[in-house]
C-alpha cells in the first residue's frame, strides 16, 4: 500500500467527520489557552487549519502543505508575541492527534493510516515549536536594542557642559554606543566639558575601567575635558584593590561636585541669588 493512497483514505475519513473533529479540537485548544483567546476566534483558526490539513493529506493540492506550514508559523508567531508558553502553543497542534485518535479508535482498519498521520502532526508540531522559538529570539533581540537605547542618554547640564548618566554594566558594545553618542553630542553642542556619572554602574572591574578610559581619551582628542563621578564606596574599594589608575582624569564623589568642578573650569560661579 503506497503512502499517497493511505493518506488519501485518511483524508476522506477525516473529511467525513469534519464537524466532530473541528468541534473537539477547538474545545481542547480553547481549554489550553484558558480563555485568553475567544472561543469563536479559536474555532475560526482551527477550521482554517483543518481544511489545510485535509487538503495537504488528500494530495490533490501540492501547495497545501506549504500553506499549512505558513499558517502554523503565523499562528505560533502571534502566540509567542502574546506571551503564551511553548507548551500551550505546541499543544494546539498535538491536540489534533488526540482528537483523531479518539475518532479512529472505533475503526480498526485505519491503524497504518493513523501512523502516517501521526508522523505528519509531529513534524508540524516541531515546526510550530521552531517558529515559536525564533519569534521569541526576535522579541528578545528587539528588547535588548530598546534597552541599549534607553540606557545611554546624553544630557546637557549647562552651557558647554554635558553629562552621561551610565546605568548598567559597561560592555564593549555599550561603550562603543556611549562613546559615539557622547562625541557626537560634544561636536553638535560645542560643549567642552563632559561628566561621566557611574552611579548606576554596579561593578567596575579592569575591563569597565578600560572602557571608561577609552571614552575619556576619545573625548579629550576632540578637545573636551572629562570628569568621572558617582563612584560608590564599594566601587572605590574595588578600583584601588585592582590597582586601576585613572591617571590625570578628575574624579568626584557626586554629580553635584562634578558640576561645580566643571563650572569652575568654565570660569563660572553659582552663588545665592
Amino acid at each position, binding site marked *: 500500500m503506497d503512502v499517497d493512497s493511505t493518506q488519501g483514505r485518511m483524508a476522506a475519513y477525516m473529511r467525513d467527520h469534519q464537524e466532530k473533529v473541528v468541534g473537539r479540537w477547538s474545545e481542547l485548544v480553547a481549554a489550553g489557552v484558558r480563555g485568553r483567546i475567544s472561543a469563536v476566534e479559536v474555532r475560526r483558526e482551527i477550521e482554517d487549519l483543518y481544511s489545510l490539513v485535509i487538503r495537504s493529506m488528500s494530495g490533490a493540492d501540492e501547495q497545501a502543505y506549504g500553506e499549512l506550514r505558513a499558517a502554523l508559523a503565523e499562528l505560533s508567531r502571534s502566540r509567542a508575541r502574546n506571551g503564551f508558553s511553548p507548551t500551550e502553543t505546541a499543544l494546539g497542534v498535538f491536540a489534533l492527534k488526540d482528537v483523531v485518535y479518539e475518532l479512529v479508535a472505533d475503526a480498526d482498519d485505519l491503524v497504518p493510516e493513523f501512523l502516517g498521520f501521526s508522523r505528519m502532526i509531529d513534524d508540524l508540531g516541531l515546526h510550530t515549536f521552531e517558529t515559536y522559538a525564533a519569534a521569541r529570539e526576535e522579541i528578545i533581540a528587539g528588547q535588548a536594542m530598546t534597552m541599549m537605547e534607553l540606557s545611554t542618554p546624553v544630557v546637557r547640564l549647562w552651557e558647554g557642559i554635558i553629562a552621561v548618566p551610565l546605568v548598567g554594566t559597561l560592555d564593549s558594545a555599550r561603550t*562603543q554606543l556611549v*562613546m*559615539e553618542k557622547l*562625541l*557626537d553630542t*560634544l*561636536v553638535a553642542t*560645542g*560643549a*567642552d566639558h563632559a561628566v561621566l556619572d557611574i552611579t548606576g554602574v554596579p561593578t567596575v572591574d579592569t575591563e569597565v575601567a578600560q572602557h571608561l578610559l*577609552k571614552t575619556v*581619551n*576619545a*573625548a*579629550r*582628542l*576632540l*578637545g*573636551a575635558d572629562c570628569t568621572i563621578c558617582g563612584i560608590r564606596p564599594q566601587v572605590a574599594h574595588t578600583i584601588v584593590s585592582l590597582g586601576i589608575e585613572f591617571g590625570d582624569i578628575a574624579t568626584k564623589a557626586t554629580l553635584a561636585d562634578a558640576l561645580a568642578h566643571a563650572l569652575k573650569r568654565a570660569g563660572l560661579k553659582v552663588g545665592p541669588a
Partner: protein
Amino acid sequence: MERVPIVKIGQTLFVSIQIDLQDESVLRLQEDLADELSKTGAHGVIIDITAVEIVDSFIGRMLTMIGSISRLFDAETVIVGMRPAVAITLTELGLSLRGVRTALNADKGLEMLNGRT
C-alpha cells in the same frame, strides 16, 4: 605633490588639512612649518583636521611630531575639529596625541592659545 598652505594670523600659524595626506606632503608640511615658525616667531600653531575622515597610526604620529617640532620654537600646537569617528579610531589605536592640545573648533583653539600668551 600637493602642498598644505600655512597661513599666519597674528601670532598664530593656521594649517587646514584638506587633502589626502601622503608621506611626501606630510614631510613637506613639517619642513614648511619649521621654516615658517623660525621666520615669524609665531607662538601658536592651529591644525584644522575637520576635513580629515580617515586616520592611521602614521597620521597620528605626524600630529605628535608637529607638536614636538613646534615646541622647539616655543610654540604650542592645538589640533582642532577632529571628527568623532577619527577620535574613536585614534583611541582604538592607542594613540592619545601626547604633547599636543585639542579643541573642538578653530574658535576654541584660538581662545586656548590666546589664554596662554
